[in-house]
Protein backbone atom coordinates (compact mmCIF):
# COMPACT_ATOMS: atom_id res chain seq x y z
CA UNK A 1 0.00 0.00 0.00
CA UNK A 2 2.68 2.46 1.04
CA UNK A 3 4.86 1.43 -1.85
CA UNK A 4 2.08 1.79 -4.38
CA UNK A 5 1.27 5.26 -3.05
CA UNK A 6 4.89 6.15 -3.38
CA UNK A 7 5.01 4.94 -6.98
CA UNK A 8 1.84 6.83 -7.70
CA UNK A 9 3.45 9.97 -6.34
CA UNK A 10 6.44 9.49 -8.58
CA UNK A 11 4.27 8.89 -11.59
CA UNK A 12 1.90 11.81 -10.99
CA UNK A 13 2.17 14.11 -13.97
CA UNK A 14 2.98 17.67 -13.07
CA UNK A 15 1.98 20.15 -15.69
CA UNK A 16 4.09 23.23 -16.03
CA UNK A 17 7.33 24.02 -14.34
CA UNK A 18 7.80 23.75 -10.62
CA UNK A 19 9.41 26.97 -9.48
CA UNK A 20 9.21 26.46 -5.76
CA UNK A 21 8.67 23.56 -3.45
CA UNK A 22 8.72 23.31 0.30
CA UNK A 23 7.40 21.16 3.06
CA UNK A 24 5.83 23.21 5.79
CA UNK A 25 4.58 21.98 9.13
CA UNK A 26 1.14 21.55 7.68
CA UNK A 27 1.46 20.62 4.04
CA UNK A 28 3.62 20.31 1.00
CA UNK A 29 3.61 23.56 -0.91
CA UNK A 30 4.35 23.66 -4.61
CA UNK A 31 4.38 26.69 -6.88
CA UNK A 32 4.04 25.91 -10.52
CA UNK A 33 4.40 28.12 -13.53
CA UNK A 34 2.64 27.38 -16.78
CA UNK A 35 3.00 30.21 -19.28
CA UNK A 36 1.69 33.33 -17.59
CA UNK A 37 -0.30 31.27 -15.11
CA UNK A 38 1.21 30.60 -11.72
CA UNK A 39 -0.44 28.21 -9.31
CA UNK A 40 -0.15 27.35 -5.66
CA UNK A 41 -0.65 23.67 -5.05
CA UNK A 42 -1.00 21.99 -1.69
CA UNK A 43 -0.04 18.35 -1.47
CA UNK A 44 0.67 17.80 -5.12
CA UNK A 45 1.15 14.08 -4.60
CA UNK A 46 -2.43 13.62 -3.64
CA UNK A 47 -3.81 14.59 -6.98
CA UNK A 48 -2.69 18.02 -7.95
CA UNK A 49 -5.09 20.38 -6.27
CA UNK A 50 -4.74 23.96 -7.32
CA UNK A 51 -5.28 26.13 -4.33
CA UNK A 52 -4.91 29.44 -6.09
CA UNK A 53 -3.74 30.54 -9.49
CA UNK A 54 -2.91 33.96 -10.79
CA UNK A 55 -2.38 35.17 -14.30
CA UNK A 56 0.79 37.25 -14.19
CA UNK A 57 -0.34 39.28 -17.20
CA UNK A 58 -3.62 40.21 -15.55
CA UNK A 59 -3.07 39.68 -11.84
CA UNK A 60 -6.41 41.25 -10.89
CA UNK A 61 -8.38 38.67 -12.80
CA UNK A 62 -9.55 35.87 -10.54
CA UNK A 63 -8.80 32.61 -12.25
CA UNK A 64 -10.93 30.26 -10.16
CA UNK A 65 -14.64 30.00 -10.03
CA UNK A 66 -14.70 29.50 -6.26
CA UNK A 67 -12.49 32.53 -5.65
CA UNK A 68 -14.90 34.65 -7.64
CA UNK A 69 -17.85 33.12 -5.84
CA UNK A 70 -16.36 34.28 -2.56
CA UNK A 71 -17.43 37.81 -3.48
CA UNK A 72 -21.12 36.95 -3.73
CA UNK A 73 -21.41 38.16 -0.14
CA UNK A 74 -21.21 41.67 -1.57
CA UNK A 75 -24.79 41.19 -2.74
CA UNK A 76 -25.81 41.32 0.92
CA UNK A 77 -23.14 43.67 2.24
CA UNK A 78 -22.01 45.84 -0.67
CA UNK A 79 -19.65 48.14 1.20
CA UNK A 80 -17.80 46.34 3.96
CA UNK A 81 -15.58 48.52 6.09
CA UNK A 82 -13.96 45.68 7.96
CA UNK A 83 -13.13 42.29 6.47
CA UNK A 84 -11.81 39.09 7.95
CA UNK A 85 -10.41 36.38 5.70
CA UNK A 86 -9.57 33.05 7.37
CA UNK A 87 -7.15 31.16 5.16
CA UNK A 88 -4.70 33.02 2.95
CA UNK A 89 -3.85 30.64 0.12
CA UNK A 90 -2.19 32.66 -2.60
CA UNK A 91 -3.80 35.78 -1.21
CA UNK A 92 -6.01 36.63 -4.17
CA UNK A 93 -9.16 37.01 -2.07
CA UNK A 94 -7.69 39.58 0.36
CA UNK A 95 -5.83 41.34 -2.46
CA UNK A 96 -9.07 41.74 -4.37
CA UNK A 97 -10.80 43.07 -1.26
CA UNK A 98 -7.94 45.50 -0.79
CA UNK A 99 -8.26 46.64 -4.36
CA UNK A 100 -12.04 47.00 -4.16
CA UNK A 101 -12.13 48.67 -0.77
CA UNK A 102 -8.86 50.48 -0.15
CA UNK A 103 -10.20 52.06 3.02
CA UNK A 104 -11.51 48.87 4.57
CA UNK A 105 -9.60 47.25 7.41
CA UNK A 106 -8.67 43.74 6.33
CA UNK A 107 -7.44 41.03 8.68
CA UNK A 108 -6.16 37.80 7.24
CA UNK A 109 -5.60 34.77 9.47
CA UNK A 110 -3.37 31.99 8.23
CA UNK A 111 -2.04 29.16 10.37
CA UNK A 112 0.95 28.34 8.20
CA UNK A 113 3.79 30.91 8.09
CA UNK A 114 5.18 29.17 5.00
CA UNK A 115 1.99 29.97 3.08
CA UNK A 116 2.35 33.63 4.03
CA UNK A 117 5.89 33.85 2.68
CA UNK A 118 5.01 31.95 -0.49
CA UNK A 119 2.06 34.27 -1.11
CA UNK A 120 4.35 37.27 -0.70
CA UNK A 121 7.15 35.92 -2.81
CA UNK A 122 5.25 34.30 -5.67
CA UNK A 123 1.71 35.66 -5.73
CA UNK A 124 2.16 39.39 -5.46
CA UNK A 125 0.53 39.39 -2.06
CA UNK A 126 1.32 42.53 -0.12
CA UNK A 127 0.22 43.76 3.22
CA UNK A 128 -0.67 47.41 3.51
CA UNK A 129 -1.55 49.98 6.13
CA UNK A 130 -5.06 48.54 6.14
CA UNK A 131 -4.35 44.89 5.50
CA UNK A 132 -2.64 42.69 8.05
CA UNK A 133 -1.81 39.02 8.12
CA UNK A 134 -1.93 37.21 11.43
CA UNK A 135 -0.18 33.87 11.66
CA UNK A 136 -2.59 32.10 13.94
CA UNK A 137 -5.26 29.48 14.14
CA UNK A 138 -8.56 30.97 12.96
CA UNK A 139 -10.42 29.64 15.96
CA UNK A 140 -7.99 31.25 18.38
CA UNK A 141 -7.99 34.52 16.44
CA UNK A 142 -11.77 34.68 16.39
CA UNK A 143 -12.09 33.79 20.07
CA UNK A 144 -9.76 36.69 20.88
CA UNK A 145 -11.75 38.97 18.61
CA UNK A 146 -14.87 38.04 20.58
CA UNK A 147 -13.10 38.97 23.82
CA UNK A 148 -11.82 42.24 22.47
CA UNK A 149 -15.17 43.11 20.95
CA UNK A 150 -13.80 43.43 17.42
CA UNK A 151 -16.39 42.98 14.70
CA UNK A 152 -16.37 42.63 10.95
CA UNK A 153 -18.72 43.44 8.10
CA UNK A 154 -17.53 40.63 5.86
CA UNK A 155 -16.19 37.33 7.16
CA UNK A 156 -14.77 34.90 4.66
CA UNK A 157 -13.96 31.37 5.86
CA UNK A 158 -11.64 29.71 3.41
CA UNK A 159 -9.58 27.47 5.65
CA UNK A 160 -10.34 24.14 4.08
CA UNK A 161 -7.58 23.05 1.76
CA UNK A 162 -9.20 19.75 0.97
CA UNK A 163 -6.41 17.67 2.42
CA UNK A 164 -6.82 17.84 6.16
CA UNK A 165 -9.93 19.45 7.52
CA UNK A 166 -9.56 21.60 10.63
CA UNK A 167 -12.41 20.01 12.53
CA UNK A 168 -12.63 22.73 15.16
CA UNK A 169 -13.68 25.16 12.41
CA UNK A 170 -16.77 23.16 11.54
CA UNK A 171 -18.57 23.16 14.85
CA UNK A 172 -21.64 24.89 16.18
CA UNK A 173 -19.58 26.54 18.92
CA UNK A 174 -17.18 27.96 16.35
CA UNK A 175 -20.02 29.35 14.27
CA UNK A 176 -21.50 30.88 17.41
CA UNK A 177 -18.21 32.69 17.93
CA UNK A 178 -18.17 33.81 14.30
CA UNK A 179 -21.68 35.16 14.79
CA UNK A 180 -20.50 37.22 17.74
CA UNK A 181 -17.88 39.02 15.66
CA UNK A 182 -20.18 39.73 12.74
CA UNK A 183 -21.67 43.20 12.56
CA UNK A 184 -25.48 43.39 12.36
CA UNK A 185 -25.37 44.20 8.65
CA UNK A 186 -22.41 41.93 8.01
CA UNK A 187 -22.21 38.79 5.95
CA UNK A 188 -20.56 35.43 6.44
CA UNK A 189 -19.23 33.62 3.39
CA UNK A 190 -17.86 30.12 3.87
CA UNK A 191 -16.18 28.03 1.24
CA UNK A 192 -17.14 24.50 2.21
CA UNK A 193 -17.67 20.97 1.04
CA UNK A 194 -20.00 20.01 -1.72
CA UNK A 195 -19.58 16.28 -1.61
CA UNK A 196 -19.51 13.50 0.94
CA UNK A 197 -21.44 13.03 4.14
CA UNK A 198 -19.78 16.15 5.43
CA UNK A 199 -22.06 18.21 3.20
CA UNK A 200 -25.08 17.05 5.19
CA UNK A 201 -23.47 17.49 8.58
CA UNK A 202 -22.17 20.90 7.72
CA UNK A 203 -25.47 22.08 6.31
CA UNK A 204 -27.32 20.92 9.41
CA UNK A 205 -24.80 22.75 11.60
CA UNK A 206 -25.04 26.01 9.68
CA UNK A 207 -28.79 25.76 9.74
CA UNK A 208 -28.76 25.32 13.50
CA UNK A 209 -26.67 28.42 14.06
CA UNK A 210 -27.90 30.75 11.29
CA UNK A 211 -31.42 29.40 10.70
CA UNK A 212 -31.11 29.85 6.96
CA UNK A 213 -28.40 30.44 4.44
CA UNK A 214 -27.87 30.73 0.74
CA UNK A 215 -26.41 27.61 -0.75
CA UNK A 216 -24.37 28.82 -3.66
CA UNK A 217 -23.11 26.34 -6.21
CA UNK A 218 -21.93 26.66 -9.77
CA UNK A 219 -21.48 23.87 -12.28
CA UNK A 220 -17.97 25.17 -12.96
CA UNK A 221 -16.82 24.59 -9.42
CA UNK A 222 -16.75 21.65 -7.06
CA UNK A 223 -17.14 24.03 -4.16
CA UNK A 224 -20.23 24.99 -2.29
CA UNK A 225 -20.30 28.46 -0.85
CA UNK A 226 -22.48 29.20 2.14
CA UNK A 227 -23.62 32.80 2.45
CA UNK A 228 -25.56 33.99 5.42
CA UNK A 229 -26.04 36.71 7.97
CA UNK A 230 -27.51 37.22 11.40
CA UNK A 231 -31.22 37.69 10.86
CA UNK A 232 -33.45 37.10 7.88
CA UNK A 233 -31.98 36.82 4.40
CA UNK A 234 -33.02 39.41 1.82
CA UNK A 235 -35.48 38.40 -0.90
CA UNK A 236 -33.88 37.38 -4.16
CA UNK A 237 -35.10 40.52 -5.92
CA UNK A 238 -32.89 42.54 -3.65
CA UNK A 239 -29.90 40.41 -4.63
CA UNK A 240 -30.61 40.96 -8.30
CA UNK A 241 -30.75 44.71 -7.73
CA UNK A 242 -27.46 44.65 -5.86
CA UNK A 243 -25.87 42.55 -8.59
CA UNK A 244 -26.91 45.09 -11.20
CA UNK A 245 -25.46 47.94 -9.23
CA UNK A 246 -22.17 46.16 -8.53
CA UNK A 247 -21.62 44.20 -11.74
CA UNK A 248 -19.56 46.82 -13.48
CA UNK A 249 -17.04 47.20 -10.68
CA UNK A 250 -16.56 43.41 -10.71
CA UNK A 251 -15.63 43.12 -14.37
CA UNK A 252 -11.98 43.82 -13.77
CA UNK A 253 -11.77 40.71 -11.61
CA UNK A 254 -13.90 38.55 -13.94
CA UNK A 255 -16.54 38.13 -11.26
CA UNK A 256 -19.84 37.41 -13.06
CA UNK A 257 -21.97 38.80 -10.29
CA UNK A 258 -25.11 39.00 -12.43
CA UNK A 259 -25.20 35.23 -12.75
CA UNK A 260 -25.02 34.67 -9.03
CA UNK A 261 -28.46 35.48 -7.59
CA UNK A 262 -30.13 32.76 -9.64
CA UNK A 263 -27.67 30.24 -8.24
CA UNK A 264 -28.16 31.14 -4.62
CA UNK A 265 -30.75 28.90 -3.11
CA UNK A 266 -32.27 28.42 0.32
CA UNK A 267 -33.77 25.08 -0.64
CA UNK A 268 -32.89 22.24 1.70
CA UNK A 269 -31.07 19.60 -0.34
CA UNK A 270 -29.33 17.77 2.48
CA UNK A 271 -30.21 15.05 4.90
CA UNK A 272 -31.63 16.94 7.86
CA UNK A 273 -31.38 13.96 10.16
CA UNK A 274 -27.59 14.20 10.31
CA UNK A 275 -25.93 15.14 13.57
CA UNK A 276 -24.94 18.70 14.24
CA UNK A 277 -21.15 19.07 14.44
CA UNK A 278 -20.06 20.31 17.86
CA UNK A 279 -16.83 20.64 19.79
CA UNK A 280 -17.82 17.33 21.32
CA UNK A 281 -18.58 15.66 18.01
CA UNK A 282 -16.68 16.74 14.93
CA UNK A 283 -15.13 13.85 13.02
CA UNK A 284 -14.88 15.90 9.80
CA UNK A 285 -11.96 13.98 8.42
CA UNK A 286 -13.76 10.69 8.90
CA UNK A 287 -16.93 11.95 7.26
CA UNK A 288 -15.45 13.13 4.02
CA UNK A 289 -15.70 9.95 2.03
Amino acid at each position, binding site marked *: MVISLFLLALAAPVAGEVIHQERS*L*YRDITVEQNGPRRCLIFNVHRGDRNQTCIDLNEPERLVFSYTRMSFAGLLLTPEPESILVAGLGGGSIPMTFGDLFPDALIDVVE*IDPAVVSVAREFFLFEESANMHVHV*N*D*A*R*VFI*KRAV*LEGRKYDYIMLDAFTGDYI*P*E*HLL*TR*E*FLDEVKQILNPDGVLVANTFSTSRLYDHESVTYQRVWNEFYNFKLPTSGNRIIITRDGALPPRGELVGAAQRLAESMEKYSIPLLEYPARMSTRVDWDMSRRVL*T*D*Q*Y*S*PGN*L*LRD
Partner: protein
Amino acid sequence: MKGGSSSPLPRPVVASVAFVSGFCIMTVEMLGARIMAPYFGGSVSVWGSIITVFMLALAVGYLLGGRLSMRNPNALVFASFYVSAALFSLPIILFADAIMRPIFLAVEDARYGSLLASIVMFSVPTTLLGMISPYSVRLLVESQEHSGQMAGLLFFVSTIGSAAGTLGTSFYFVLWFEVNRILWGAVTALLIAAAIILLAGYMRGSLSLRVSSHET
Protein backbone atom coordinates in the same frame (compact mmCIF):
# COMPACT_ATOMS: atom_id res chain seq x y z
CA MET B 1 10.55 -13.03 49.62
CA LYS B 2 8.30 -16.05 49.24
CA GLY B 3 8.46 -18.33 46.20
CA GLY B 4 5.78 -20.20 44.25
CA SER B 5 2.40 -18.54 43.90
CA SER B 6 3.09 -15.81 46.40
CA SER B 7 2.27 -13.14 43.81
CA PRO B 8 -0.70 -11.18 45.17
CA LEU B 9 -2.55 -11.33 41.84
CA PRO B 10 -2.86 -13.86 39.03
CA ARG B 11 -0.80 -13.06 35.98
CA PRO B 12 -3.77 -12.78 33.54
CA VAL B 13 -5.41 -10.24 35.83
CA VAL B 14 -2.33 -8.04 36.01
CA ALA B 15 -1.81 -8.35 32.27
CA SER B 16 -5.42 -7.39 31.46
CA VAL B 17 -5.50 -4.37 33.71
CA ALA B 18 -2.13 -3.27 32.29
CA PHE B 19 -3.78 -3.42 28.87
CA VAL B 20 -6.63 -1.26 30.16
CA SER B 21 -4.27 1.38 31.53
CA GLY B 22 -2.31 1.53 28.27
CA PHE B 23 -5.57 1.84 26.37
CA CYS B 24 -6.89 4.66 28.56
CA ILE B 25 -3.66 6.66 28.45
CA MET B 26 -3.81 6.90 24.69
CA THR B 27 -7.55 7.44 24.52
CA VAL B 28 -7.20 10.51 26.74
CA GLU B 29 -4.11 11.69 24.85
CA MET B 30 -5.83 11.43 21.47
CA LEU B 31 -8.83 13.34 22.78
CA GLY B 32 -6.57 15.96 24.33
CA ALA B 33 -6.03 17.74 21.03
CA ARG B 34 -9.74 17.79 20.39
CA ILE B 35 -10.53 19.11 23.82
CA MET B 36 -8.02 21.95 23.49
CA ALA B 37 -8.64 22.93 19.85
CA PRO B 38 -11.52 25.32 20.63
CA TYR B 39 -9.19 27.41 22.79
CA PHE B 40 -5.73 26.84 21.41
CA GLY B 41 -6.36 25.76 17.85
CA GLY B 42 -5.26 22.78 15.86
CA SER B 43 -1.67 23.74 15.27
CA VAL B 44 1.27 21.40 15.62
CA SER B 45 2.29 23.10 18.87
CA VAL B 46 -0.91 21.94 20.57
CA TRP B 47 0.03 18.35 19.82
CA GLY B 48 3.53 19.18 21.03
CA SER B 49 2.15 20.39 24.36
CA ILE B 50 0.03 17.33 24.86
CA ILE B 51 2.71 14.81 24.01
CA THR B 52 5.28 16.62 26.16
CA VAL B 53 3.00 16.65 29.18
CA PHE B 54 2.07 12.99 28.74
CA MET B 55 5.71 11.97 28.43
CA LEU B 56 6.76 13.96 31.49
CA ALA B 57 3.83 12.72 33.55
CA LEU B 58 4.50 9.12 32.60
CA ALA B 59 8.18 9.56 33.46
CA VAL B 60 7.30 10.85 36.92
CA GLY B 61 4.73 8.10 37.29
CA TYR B 62 7.29 5.41 36.48
CA LEU B 63 9.59 6.80 39.12
CA LEU B 64 6.89 7.05 41.80
CA GLY B 65 5.34 3.69 40.96
CA GLY B 66 8.74 2.02 41.13
CA ARG B 67 9.42 3.63 44.48
CA LEU B 68 6.06 2.56 45.90
CA SER B 69 6.54 -0.99 44.67
CA MET B 70 9.39 -1.43 47.13
CA ARG B 71 7.08 -1.32 50.15
CA ASN B 72 4.80 -4.32 50.44
CA PRO B 73 3.37 -4.49 46.90
CA ASN B 74 -0.29 -5.43 47.15
CA ALA B 75 -3.58 -5.44 45.31
CA LEU B 76 -5.11 -2.65 47.35
CA VAL B 77 -2.48 -0.07 46.46
CA PHE B 78 -2.52 -1.32 42.87
CA ALA B 79 -6.30 -0.85 42.63
CA SER B 80 -6.02 2.58 44.19
CA PHE B 81 -3.92 3.78 41.21
CA TYR B 82 -6.82 2.94 38.92
CA VAL B 83 -9.44 4.52 41.15
CA SER B 84 -7.47 7.73 41.62
CA ALA B 85 -6.59 7.96 37.90
CA ALA B 86 -10.31 7.66 37.19
CA LEU B 87 -11.18 10.33 39.75
CA PHE B 88 -8.49 12.74 38.57
CA SER B 89 -9.71 12.32 34.99
CA LEU B 90 -13.10 13.70 35.97
CA PRO B 91 -12.04 17.38 35.78
CA ILE B 92 -11.26 16.84 32.07
CA ILE B 93 -14.91 15.93 31.59
CA LEU B 94 -16.54 18.26 34.07
CA PHE B 95 -14.39 21.39 34.13
CA ALA B 96 -12.50 21.52 30.83
CA ASP B 97 -14.00 24.88 29.86
CA ALA B 98 -13.61 26.30 33.35
CA ILE B 99 -9.94 25.29 33.24
CA MET B 100 -9.15 26.47 29.72
CA ARG B 101 -11.04 29.76 29.69
CA PRO B 102 -8.90 31.57 32.29
CA ILE B 103 -5.73 30.16 30.73
CA PHE B 104 -6.86 31.42 27.33
CA LEU B 105 -7.53 34.82 28.86
CA ALA B 106 -4.24 35.00 30.73
CA VAL B 107 -1.85 33.55 28.16
CA GLU B 108 -1.78 35.21 24.76
CA ASP B 109 0.55 32.71 23.11
CA ALA B 110 -1.40 29.56 22.23
CA ARG B 111 1.71 27.42 22.59
CA TYR B 112 2.16 28.20 26.27
CA GLY B 113 -1.57 28.32 26.82
CA SER B 114 -1.95 24.78 25.52
CA LEU B 115 1.08 23.65 27.52
CA LEU B 116 -0.36 25.07 30.71
CA ALA B 117 -3.81 23.65 30.03
CA SER B 118 -2.28 20.24 29.32
CA ILE B 119 -0.40 20.32 32.58
CA VAL B 120 -3.50 21.24 34.57
CA MET B 121 -5.80 18.71 32.92
CA PHE B 122 -3.61 15.76 32.07
CA SER B 123 -0.53 15.61 34.28
CA VAL B 124 -2.09 14.13 37.43
CA PRO B 125 -4.16 11.33 35.88
CA THR B 126 -1.31 10.45 33.50
CA THR B 127 1.21 10.31 36.34
CA LEU B 128 -1.12 7.97 38.21
CA LEU B 129 -1.50 5.78 35.14
CA GLY B 130 2.29 5.78 34.71
CA MET B 131 2.70 4.43 38.24
CA ILE B 132 0.88 1.29 37.20
CA SER B 133 3.64 -0.02 34.92
CA PRO B 134 6.51 -0.56 37.38
CA TYR B 135 4.14 -1.54 40.14
CA SER B 136 2.54 -4.23 38.02
CA VAL B 137 5.99 -5.59 37.16
CA ARG B 138 6.75 -5.89 40.86
CA LEU B 139 3.46 -7.69 41.49
CA LEU B 140 4.39 -10.43 39.05
CA VAL B 141 8.10 -10.76 39.66
CA GLU B 142 8.84 -13.71 41.89
CA SER B 143 12.50 -14.16 41.19
CA GLN B 144 15.34 -12.19 39.81
CA GLU B 145 15.75 -14.24 36.65
CA HIS B 146 12.08 -13.71 35.76
CA SER B 147 12.09 -9.98 36.28
CA GLY B 148 13.08 -9.09 32.73
CA GLN B 149 10.55 -11.51 31.30
CA MET B 150 7.73 -10.09 33.41
CA ALA B 151 8.70 -6.55 32.57
CA GLY B 152 8.73 -7.52 28.89
CA LEU B 153 5.32 -9.14 29.13
CA LEU B 154 3.77 -6.14 30.86
CA PHE B 155 5.32 -3.58 28.53
CA PHE B 156 4.03 -5.72 25.70
CA VAL B 157 0.40 -5.82 26.84
CA SER B 158 0.24 -2.21 27.98
CA THR B 159 1.78 -0.97 24.75
CA ILE B 160 -0.59 -3.13 22.72
CA GLY B 161 -3.33 -1.53 24.82
CA SER B 162 -1.98 1.91 23.93
CA ALA B 163 -1.97 1.04 20.25
CA ALA B 164 -5.54 -0.21 20.49
CA GLY B 165 -6.60 2.91 22.40
CA THR B 166 -5.03 5.16 19.81
CA LEU B 167 -6.59 3.41 16.86
CA GLY B 168 -9.97 2.84 18.43
CA THR B 169 -10.28 6.46 19.52
CA SER B 170 -9.08 8.13 16.36
CA PHE B 171 -10.75 5.80 13.86
CA TYR B 172 -14.01 4.91 15.49
CA PHE B 173 -14.91 6.36 18.87
CA VAL B 174 -14.83 9.98 17.68
CA LEU B 175 -17.09 8.98 14.81
CA TRP B 176 -19.61 7.29 17.08
CA PHE B 177 -19.55 9.22 20.33
CA GLU B 178 -19.09 12.63 21.82
CA VAL B 179 -15.73 13.34 23.40
CA ASN B 180 -17.09 13.33 26.94
CA ARG B 181 -18.85 10.05 26.44
CA ILE B 182 -15.58 8.46 25.35
CA LEU B 183 -13.91 9.90 28.44
CA TRP B 184 -16.66 8.49 30.65
CA GLY B 185 -15.97 5.17 28.98
CA ALA B 186 -12.29 5.41 29.94
CA VAL B 187 -13.19 6.33 33.52
CA THR B 188 -15.56 3.38 33.70
CA ALA B 189 -12.92 1.04 32.29
CA LEU B 190 -10.43 2.17 34.94
CA LEU B 191 -12.96 1.62 37.71
CA ILE B 192 -13.85 -1.82 36.39
CA ALA B 193 -10.13 -2.66 36.30
CA ALA B 194 -9.87 -1.60 39.94
CA ALA B 195 -12.85 -3.77 40.85
CA ILE B 196 -11.29 -6.76 39.08
CA ILE B 197 -8.02 -6.23 40.94
CA LEU B 198 -9.78 -6.09 44.30
CA LEU B 199 -11.90 -9.11 43.53
CA ALA B 200 -8.94 -11.17 42.33
CA GLY B 201 -6.84 -10.08 45.29
CA TYR B 202 -9.65 -11.01 47.66
CA MET B 203 -10.14 -14.41 46.04
CA ARG B 204 -6.46 -15.16 46.20
CA GLY B 205 -6.56 -14.17 49.81
CA SER B 206 -3.72 -11.77 49.33
CA LEU B 207 -5.74 -8.73 50.08
CA SER B 208 -6.76 -9.36 53.68
CA LEU B 209 -3.67 -11.45 54.43
CA ARG B 210 -1.17 -8.86 53.35
CA VAL B 211 -2.86 -5.93 54.95
CA SER B 212 -3.45 -7.67 58.28
CA SER B 213 -0.02 -9.28 58.46
CA HIS B 214 1.58 -5.90 58.25
CA GLU B 215 -0.77 -4.14 60.56
CA THR B 216 0.01 -6.42 63.45
